[in-house]
C-alpha cells in the first residue's frame, strides 16, 4: 500500500495536489468503504504511530530550518504560534458551538484541534511547490508550523481533561501548565540539541548510523520531556534545529536519510489515519464541516494572522499569504483522537468534522500554494546554489573549509584564470579548483578549458564566497530574463550614495541628505529587518533588494521605468 502511494505521488506533481492528500486518499481507499475493505479501528495504535511520526517530522523540520531566518521571522512566528493558535481556536470554537448547537467547551475543543498549522504539510508544500518565498514569509510559516503544535496539543489536552473531570476551567491553572510545558520543552530541547551535537562531533560511527542516532536521540528526548510534563514536540523541534544548524560531519548523507525517514513517517501516518476514518461517516456532517472549514480559512485564520502580525512590519500581501497557507494536516487528526481515547460523548462528531476540515484545507489551500504566491508577489527568483556540500573541518572556530559541487548550467564559459591558477593554501581565502568531471571522467583544466552543459565542478571554498561562485556556473538566458524582470536591469551596491544615484537617473534631489545611502532609503521606508525581494520606488526607478548578508543589504537591483507608475 505504501508502494502504491509512493508511485502515485509522482502524478501529484502534475496536478499540483499535495502529496499528503494522496497518502490519505489511498488509506481511505483501502479502508472499510473502499476497495481494500481493510477494517482498521484502533485509535490507540493510530494515536501512538501518529505521535511518533509527528516527532520525526518535527525533528527533520527543525534540522532544515535555517537559524538565519530567525533574524526576520522568529518573533512574528512565535506570536502566531501562541496567540495565533488561541485566537483561531476561540473563533472557530464559538462558531462551531453555534453551528453544531453543542456546549461552548466542545466547540472550543474542536477549535483547538484544528488550531495549529501542520509542519509536515507546510514543510513539504513549501519545499516541493517550486516557488521560493521571500525569507520573511517562508521563515515565518515554517517556524510557526513547527512551533504551534505544542500550543494546540496543550489546549486540546487541557480541554479534554476539563471535560473528563467536569471541573471548571481555571485560567491560572491553564497558564501555569502552559508555562511549564514551554519551559521544560524549550529548555530540555535546547540542552538535548547541544548534547547531541557534542556526541555527533566526538563519537566516531559508521556513516549510516549518524541519522539513526539523531532519530533515536530525538525520540528519547520527545518521550522523556513528555513524561515529566513538558512539550515533547517543542523539545524535539529544538533538538533538530540545534543539530541542523551546528556544522556536523556527513551533513549531506544525514539529511538525506532524515528526509527519507520524515517522508516515511508522513506517508505511514497519513495512510493509517486514512484507514482509521470511515469515509461514509464523514458525509453525515459534511455540510457543517464545510461551513467550519470555510469559516476557519476565510475568517478565523486571517483574523488571527492580522492581529498577531500587527506589531511587525509585514506587507499586506504577505499577511494575506500567511493567512492562506494555514494548512491543516495530520496534527489535527491525531489531536482529534484525544477525545476519542478519553471517551468523550461528542468525540466521533469532533473526529469526523476535524477530518473533513483537514481534507478541505489540504485540497483548497494546499493545491494553491504556488499560484497564490505568484499572485500576491511574495516569491523571489531562486538563487543559484551548489548541488553538494561537504564540511571538511567541522570545528566551530575554523569552519572555513568546505568542498562544494556545482552543476554547470550554461555553455561556453571558462573557469576564471585566477581560480585555475590557485594552489592549495592554508587560509582558503581564494577558491580552489579540485576537479572538473565531464561525462563521468575527470578533465584536466587550464585557462582555455571551455565548460559544457552538465559538467560538474568541485571546489574548495570559503562559505562566504559560495553564492558568487554559484552565480558563475548558473543558467543564463532563460533565468536571467526572470531575474531582470524581478530585480531590474542594473545592480547597485547597498552603500551607494543616494544623491549620486538620484543625479544619475534624474530623480529630484529634494529631501535627500548627502550621506544617505540606498540601504538607508530602503530601511527608512520598510523597516529594519529586510529580506531579498523587498522593494521601494525612487523617482521613476524601482529598487529591489537582491542580496543580503545578515541584516546588511549588499546588492540592490535597479529597474528602469517601472510600469506601475
Amino acid at each position, binding site marked *: 500500500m505504501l508502494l502504491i502511494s509512493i508511485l502515485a505521488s509522482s502524478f501529484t506533481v502534475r496536478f499540483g495536489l499535495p502529496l499528503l492528500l494522496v497518502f490519505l486518499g489511498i488509506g481511505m481507499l483501502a479502508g472499510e468503504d473502499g476497495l481494500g475493505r481493510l477494517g482498521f479501528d484502533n485509535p490507540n495504535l493510530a494515536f501512538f504511530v501518529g505521535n511518533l511520526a509527528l516527532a520525526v517530522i518535527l525533528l527533520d523540520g527543525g534540522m532544515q530550518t535555517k537559524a538565519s531566518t530567525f533574524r526576520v521571522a522568529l518573533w512574528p512566528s512565535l506570536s502566531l504560534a501562541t496567540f495565533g493558535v488561541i485566537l483561531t481556536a476561540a473563533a472557530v470554537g464559538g462558531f462551531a458551538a453555534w453551528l453544531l448547537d453543542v456546549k461552548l467547551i466542545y466547540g472550543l475543543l474542536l477549535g483547538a484541534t484544528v488550531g495549529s498549522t501542520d509542519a509536515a504539510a507546510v514543510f513539504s508544500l513549501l519545499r516541493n511547490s517550486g516557488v521560493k518565498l521571500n525569507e520573511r514569509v517562508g521563515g515565518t510559516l515554517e517556524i510557526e508550523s513547527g512551533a504551534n503544535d505544542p500550543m494546540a496539543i496543550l489546549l486540546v489536552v487541557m480541554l479534554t481533561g476539563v471535560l473528563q473531570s467536569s471541573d471548571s476551567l481555571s485560567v491560572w491553572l491553564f497558564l501555569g501548565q502552559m508555562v511549564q510545558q514551554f519551559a521544560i520543552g524549550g529548555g530540555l530541547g535546547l540542552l538535548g540539541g547541544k548534547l547531541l551535537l557534542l556526541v555527533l562531533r566526538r563519537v566516531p560511527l559508521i556513516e549510516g548510523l549518524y541519522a539513526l542516532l539523531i532519530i533515536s536521540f530525538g525520540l528519547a528526548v520527545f518521550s522523556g520531556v513528555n513524561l515529566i510534563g513538558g512539550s515533547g514536540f517543542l523539545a524535539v523541534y529544538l533538538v533538530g534545529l540545534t543539530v541542523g544548524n551546528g556544522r556536523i560531519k556527513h551533513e549531506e548523507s544525514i539529511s538525506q536519510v532524515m528526509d527519507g525517514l520524515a517522508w516515511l513517517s508522513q506517508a505511514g501516518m497519513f495512510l493509517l489515519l486514512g484507514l482509521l476514518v470511515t469515509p461514509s461517516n464523514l458525509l453525515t456532517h459534511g455540510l457543517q464541516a464545510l461551513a467550519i472549514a470555510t469559516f476557519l480559512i476565510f475568517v478565523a485564520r486571517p483574523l488571527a494572522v492580522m492581529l498577531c502580525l500587527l506589531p511587525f512590519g509585514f506587507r499586506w500581501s504577505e499577511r494575506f499569504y500567511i493567512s492562506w497557507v494555514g494548512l491543516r494536516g495530520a496534527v489535527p487528526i491525531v489531536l482529534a483522537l484525544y477525545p476519542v481515547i478519553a471517551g468523550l460523548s461528542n468525540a466521533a462528531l469532533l473526529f469526523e468534522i476535524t477530518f473533513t476540515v483537514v481534507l478541505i484545507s489540504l485540497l483548497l489551500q494546499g493545491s494553491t500554494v504556488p499560484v497564490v504566491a505568484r499572485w500576491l508577489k511574495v516569491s523571489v527568483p531562486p538563487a543559484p546554489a551548489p548541488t553538494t556540500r561537504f564540511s571538511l573541518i567541522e570545528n566551530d572556530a575554523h569552519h572555513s573549509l568546505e568542498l562544494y559541487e556545482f552543476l554547470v548550467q550554461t555553455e561556453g564559459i571558462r573557469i576564471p584564470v585566477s581560480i585555475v591558477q590557485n594552489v592549495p593554501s592554508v587560509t582558503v581565502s581564494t577558491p580552489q579548483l579540485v576537479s572538473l568531471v565531464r561525462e563521468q571522467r575527470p578533465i584536466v583544466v587550464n585557462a582555455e578549458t571551455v565548460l559544457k552543459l552538465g559538467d560538474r565542478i568541485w571546489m574548495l571554498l570559503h562559505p562566504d564566497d559560495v553564492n558568487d561562485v554559484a552565480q558563475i556556473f548558473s543558467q543564463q*538566458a532563460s533565468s536571467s530574463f526572470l531575474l531582470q524582470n524581478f530585480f531590474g536591469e*542594473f*545592480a547597485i551596491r547597498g552603500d551607494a550614495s543616494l544623491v549620486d544615484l538620484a543625479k544619475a537617473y534624474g530623480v529630484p534631489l529634494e529631501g535627500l541628505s548627502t550621506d544617505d545611502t540606498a540601504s538607508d532609503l530602503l530601511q527608512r521606508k520598510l523597516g529594519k529587518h529586510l529580506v531579498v525581494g523587498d522593494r521601494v520606488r525612487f523617482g521613476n526607478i524601482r529598487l529591489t533588494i537582491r542580496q543580503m548578508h545578515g541584516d546588511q543589504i549588499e546588492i540592490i537591483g535597479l529597474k528602469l521605468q517601472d510600469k506601475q507608475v
Partner: protein
Amino acid sequence: MSLKSLLKPELVLAKQDIVSKKRVLENIASAVSDRMHCENEAVYEALLGREKLGSTGIGNGIAIPHCRLESANRTAIVVMSLQSPIDFDSIDKRAVDLIFALIVPPQECDQHLSTLAKIAELAQSPESLEKLRAAQTDNELFDIFDSLI
C-alpha cells in the same frame, strides 16, 4: 527619437584591444567627446561616477555604462566589442566583451531610461549577442546592431 537615429557609425568600434575596465571607459569618453564637443575628462568622470554606485556589467558578458552629462548637447550611443573579455566586476562575475554605452544630456531623462531599457532588453537575446560577438569590423558591427534595433 528612436534608438536607430541615435546610432552613429563612428561610435561603433569592433574587436578593440583593451585590457581593463578603466581603459574601456577612457576610450568611450574620448570617442564621445570628439563628437559631442565636450570635455573628455567630464565624460570619463560621469561614467566612472555611475560605476561607483555599482558595476553596469549586467551579466552574460555585457556591460552598459551610462550617465547623464551636464555639458552634453545630445544623446550618444557607443557600441564596442572586445578582442578578449575583461573583468568588469559584473553582477554574475563573468568577464565582459560587449559594451553599449549611453551618454545623455540632463533634460532628456525619461528618454534616457527608455533607451537604456531597450538596450538591456537586447542583451537578453543570446542569438543577437552571438551575432554581435561574431562581427570583426566596425562596419559589420554597425550593420548588425542596426538590424537588431
